[in-house]
């Protein structure tokens, strides 16, 4: 079973295509980077994968559940870290996680156990009582990743999760997220920064609403750096 399956997905804004007949599949338990310049269609794809938008054409399956015909089962298997911070800054880290758990119907002892688990996993247990407003950018992102893992999703989507972070925090978050595949979680990591992609990562390059390349990063970059290969690809198709 695939973690994510996207078939013939299209979307437009008032006639301007944002995604044009996009198809790809990501194997369960694997890491896939979605690389594309600003405006490539990454955020639109994420809005469709999270059912914030409904595609006029195409099909999406999350962990085997059709997002259109069985949205509740599909969304229950989805953890999401949005590009924009979605923490309630007036609540503590624990309260933010607790609120999210409730939105997934998790309550009582199960809720507190799960919260402690994810806080430990992301190394932020000591921040639990801190208000989100007082956290630095790196810890806010960790809190959001912890929150996204709270309901044990089969698939984790991260939309430019390292935007605005310094190099050390970016590296730390990227390492953490790569490690999440160890327990079978499927990861789709959207970024416009080639240095966040490792040679062994599956890589999909999205450009001008279409998939430009799909394969392993090392195969796509060949003898050059991924950054150069990416720029060459996008320039050639500008």
């Amino acid at each position, binding site marked *: 079973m695939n973690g994510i399956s996207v078939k013939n997905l299209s979307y437009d804004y008032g006639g301007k295509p944002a995604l044009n007949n996009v198809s790809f599949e990501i194997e369960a338990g694997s890491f896939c980077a979605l690389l594309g310049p600003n405006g490539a269609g990454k955020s639109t794809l994420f809005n469709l994968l999270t*059912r914030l938008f*409904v595609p006029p054409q195409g099909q999406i399956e999350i962990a085997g559940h059709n997002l259109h015909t069985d949205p509740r089962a599909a969304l229950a298997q989805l953890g*999401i870290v949005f590009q924009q911070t979605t923490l309630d800054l*007036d*609540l503590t880290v624990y309260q933010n996680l607790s*609120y999210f758990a409730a939105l*997934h119907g998790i309550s*009582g002892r199960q809720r507190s156990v799960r919260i402690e688990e994810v806080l430990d996993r992301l190394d932020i247990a000591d921040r639990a009582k801190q208000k989100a407003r007082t956290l630095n950018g790196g810890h806010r992102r960790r809190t959001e990743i912890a929150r996204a893992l709270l309901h044990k999703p089969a698939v984790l989507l991260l939309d430019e999760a390292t935007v605005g972070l310094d190099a050390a925090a970016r590296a730390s978050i990227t390492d953490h997220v790569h490690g999440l595949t160890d327990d079978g979680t499927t990861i789709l990591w959207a970024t416009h920064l080639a240095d966040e992609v490792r040679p062994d990562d599956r890589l999909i390059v999205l450009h001008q609403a279409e998939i430009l390349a799909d394969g392993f990063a090392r195969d796509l970059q060949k003898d050059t750096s991924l950054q150069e290969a990416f720029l060459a690809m996008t320039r050639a198709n500008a």
Partner: protein
Amino acid sequence: MSGYLTSLIAIVGREALRFVHQRERFVAALVRPLVWLLVFAAGFRAALGLSIIPPYQTYITYETYIVPGLCGMILLFNGMQSSLSLIYDREMGSMKLLLTSPLPRWWLLICKLLGATAISILQVYAFLGIAAMFGIIMPPLGYVAALPALIVAGLMLGALGLLLSSFIKQLENFAGVMNFVIFPMFFLSSALYPLWKMAESSVLLRDICAVNPFTHAVELIRFALYLDFNGAALGWTVLATVVFTSAALWGYSPEGTGIRRRG
């Protein structure tokens, strides 16, 4: 515990917590109707003669007349305040968290609506308490009888706020709501003057007031405060609640959002 109940408690609790964090919002919500009651009504009392109209059994002061309208004003402004919060949530991204939950979207929005209504009703009772301290007292049981009316009126105005928030794209556009929704709704109603008084100046204005759902919400509260029942007002208010809620739920559905986004 059912996921539905868990989410209801969490969303209502968060609304309450947010309200507690914004003490100035509570003060503003009370100061506005109190200024109307203690300043405007005091000055207006001499200019406006009131006849005996249902549900009143005798002549009443103007201050007494406008209390139900000011209760409606609190609900109206709170409905718009919750709308503003929803737009803010959407701009800040936290609305996405709600909309990507596996629980049905309609349920999550209903929870938001219930939370906002509960907060509004608390403020109405605080206002009624202060009004009583100034000698504007309703029949004691009227305070209890008014609760269901306040719930229905609060839900209707909260649903209107929800509907507006689903169509307003940016926080900056919200100023227009003040001019095109709140003021016309409040002034073209029976909150400040009885409809017969309005008809003396313009029959057309009276007719507009008569179809304004806010008029019926105010009348529902007015009758309930005096242990009376206004079936027509209840019918209109419930109908408006159903229409506003349905339209808001469509506006927030992935299909509704998508159509507006795609133009």
